């Protein structure tokens, strides 16, 4: 840190000390930059410390792996949970392996795990980092301060599992835009994207799209936190105007982004389809994926926003119409917890200690007699029944096979209905053949049943499963002349599905 040069004509080295800082305002900017710088320190630190690891790890670029890990966690962060630890590791491995392809896979995993653990900073009880920096206070005194931050944090997920999330600090380090407004940065990124695409500069467009996605994730994160707070704030929240305004604003934002991103999507799709250059095509396809992901995240955000209103009203009802209390009590939050949190920890501990001492209840001290103890220690342990109680033999009753049609009948019917694609048949003919094959059985019923089913063939399912043939039935108005069945004499045929074409289409549902 350099102090600004003194404007006084006195020789600086002899002066009693020109004011070293220009005041708190200038110092604050410096402090902010120092903190930003501190956020990158753990990454540099990885490359420095790899020399201390047992083994030859200098080939690995640890900072690169770390940045990739933060990238992965950010992109896999969902609205509710975070990124799965093992999943992040698995996706990190190819990059680590590429850095040292001749090393064993176990070592790659060790490196990936080491980087991830260091980003969480597993060794410390806070699981965070601390940097020390100095500022000048208002009175000109130099104060050293601790700056605590985290890059990856572990958050609880459903069912007690633990997920990873990137902190705001990490996202800022990653995106490289420190201290910027989320909303405006997102708009800027998207405008840039549109311009880039219209000028056909796809390489830059991808970068901008990725930035837009980071912003989207960050925005979703901000709103998630706000909504979480909103849920608890029933009593104190300004439900008349404040909250609805906030929700409206967010909904507007989502609608706006949705429109924007759909427009971009259409444009890139066009760019992708019209591009001749294979590289351009590939990049545009990647871009489509990114923007689709953005849209998915916005949709998720929107559904959350819509849930907020009913949730509020339910809580409001529950409280507003409750019986007024006969006497008033202590407001534990408002009068104890809230005033206590801003206090210096030394003082706050006095109050929490008092609460604990009087609030934890009582414990009956354990006391044993020596006689009991000896007896207890000498008693052989009770033999545990490892297998538990004997299970009664289950009384099984064979359920009668009550299917109307047998397997053989199904096979026969399927065989009957396996038609050549260019030779459709009428139902009446099929029924006659079924009667000839198995006279007196239920086979004709089964054939008729399958034929009726084919009148509405499961095209979607066949399409998804990539099947090549599909039985269908068409009614051309001819009536069925049959002793057992009535209705239309359906024409049954087999349609050949274009499996390859479908597979190509599937990737791009319009």
């Amino acid at each position, binding site marked *: 840190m350099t102090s600004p040069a003194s404007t006084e004509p006195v020789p600086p080295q002899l002066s009693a000390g020109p004011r070293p800082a220009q005041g708190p305002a200038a110092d*604050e900017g410096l402090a902010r930059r120092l903190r930003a710088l501190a956020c990158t320190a753990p990454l540099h630190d990885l490359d420095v410390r790899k020399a201390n690891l047992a083994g030859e790890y200098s080939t690995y670029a640890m900072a690169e792996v770390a940045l990739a890990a933060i990238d992965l966690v950010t992109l896999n962060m969902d609205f509710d949970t975070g990124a799965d630890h093992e999943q992040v590791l698995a996706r990190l491995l190819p990059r680590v392996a590429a850095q040292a392809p001749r090393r064993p896979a176990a070592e790659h995993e060790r490196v990936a795990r080491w980087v991830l653990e260091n980003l*969480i900073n597993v060794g410390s009880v*806070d*699981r*965070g980092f601390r940097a020390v920096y100095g500022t000048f206070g208002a009175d000109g005194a130099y104060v*050293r*301060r*601790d*700056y*605590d931050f*985290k890059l990856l*944090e*572990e958050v*609880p997920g459903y069912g007690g599992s*633990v997920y990873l999330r990137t902190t705001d600090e990490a996202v800022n380090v990653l995106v490289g835009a420190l201290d910027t407004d989320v909303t405006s940065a997102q708009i800027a990124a998207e405008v840039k994207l549109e311009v880039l695409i219209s000028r056909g500069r796809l390489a830059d467009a991808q970068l901008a799209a990725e930035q837009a996605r980071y912003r989207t994730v960050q925005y979703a994160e901000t709103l998630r*936190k706000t909504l979480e*707070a909103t849920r*608890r*704030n029933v*009593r*104190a*929240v300004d439900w008349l105007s404040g909250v609805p305004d906030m929700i409206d604003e967010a909904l507007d934002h989502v609608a706006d982004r949705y429109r924007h991103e759909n427009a971009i999507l259409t444009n890139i799709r066009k760019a992708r389809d019209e591009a001749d250059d294979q590289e351009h095509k590939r990049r545009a396809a990647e871009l489509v994926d990114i923007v689709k992901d953005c849209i998915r995240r916005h949709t998720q955000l929107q559904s959350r926003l819509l849930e907020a209103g009913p949730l509020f009203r339910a*809580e409001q009802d*529950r*409280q507003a119409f409750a019986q007024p*209390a006969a006497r*008033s*009590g*202590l*407001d*534990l*939050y*408002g*009068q*104890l917890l*809230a*005033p*206590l*949190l*801003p*206090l*210096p*920890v*030394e*003082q*706050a*501990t006095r*109050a*929490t*200690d*008092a*609460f*604990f*001492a*009087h*609030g934890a*209840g*009582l*414990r*009956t001290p354990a006391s044993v007699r020596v006689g009991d103890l000896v007896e207890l220690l000498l008693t052989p342990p009770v033999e545990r029944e490892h297998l538990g109680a004997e299970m009664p033999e289950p009384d099984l009753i064979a359920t009668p096979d009550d299917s109307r049609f047998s397997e053989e009948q199904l096979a026969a019917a399927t065989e009957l209905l396996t038609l050549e694609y260019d030779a459709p048949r009428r139902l009446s003919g099929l029924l006659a053949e079924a009667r000839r094959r198995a006279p007196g059985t239920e086979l004709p019923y089964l054939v008729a049943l399958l034929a009726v089913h084919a009148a509405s063939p499961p095209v979607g399912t066949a399409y998804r499963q990539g099947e090549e043939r599909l039985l269908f039935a068409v009614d051309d108005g001819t009536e069925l002349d049959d002793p057992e069945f009535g209705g239309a004499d359906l024409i049954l045929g087999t349609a050949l599905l274009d499996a390859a074409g479908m597979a190509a289409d599937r990737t791009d549902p319009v």
Partner: protein
Amino acid sequence: MSDHHAEPADAWSEPEAVAQHAPAAGQGGVTPADAADAARLVSFGLQPKLLPARDAEYADLLRRYREEPAFARLADAVATGLGLIVLEVSPRAGMAVTASEDSVFAVRMGDYARRAATDSADRFLHGLAHLAVAAMAFPRPEDLADDGYIGRITVNGVEAFVRQACRRLEERAEEQGENTDPATDAPGLEAAWRVYHRRSSTGVTKDARRLAGSTTGIIGKAVAFLTDSGFLQRTGDEGGGSYRTTARYQLQVRDMAGSAAMAELLDLGVVPVGDGTATLLPPEGEDAELVADAGLPFHG
């Protein structure tokens, strides 16, 4: 309570109590059998998870306490002699006693959590966890005052609630342009919320257990301890474990812990202003921040 304590009491009281307690109370004289009964009632009170509704003898002694003033005085005296404070004697709470400060029954922070004895941050966090559990269990002053109220909490709910309150303080400090990073050589002056804020909320240890030093771990410990104290009852596993409060907990918080902590705050010169009512109206201006999180815990 060990069985050795209980057995002689039984031997004393069972045959004679029925025959003698009526005349003894009437005449004001105290027989050894009365003393044994009183001590037996206190010993029931020392088993906080025991419910009067589930134990006929306990219920009988409770009735006797409520109907015979002389017996009640005797039981109170036994409790006081043991270093106990009687909070309430009622069918719902039983003989609700708690330890006075220097009694052998008192819980000490150092025994509760070993790290808390040496690490001031841990000490604070453990105490804060207990306070936060109470604040979430009884979010409104009415809830604490209302004898019929049953609070419901989850471990994750409490954790998120405190974290949110801390984040608000951080945001406010940022708005005011305060530099809240503590001075390196004076850790005791660090704002309390920062200590909580920088502790991670959860984590896995290398042997795939939950991290005990995380805030979720600390709150989980508090809740488990309170359950052992007969203050909470576990109702399910959702949200890291869900619990409901018992009558004893309400008494303990209302009559003991709340006022003790309040006295400390007043002693520090912090005078929390409260008009005794939790208003449903949106508060105005800056005060909104203070009570912003005082909302009810959200159920379901």
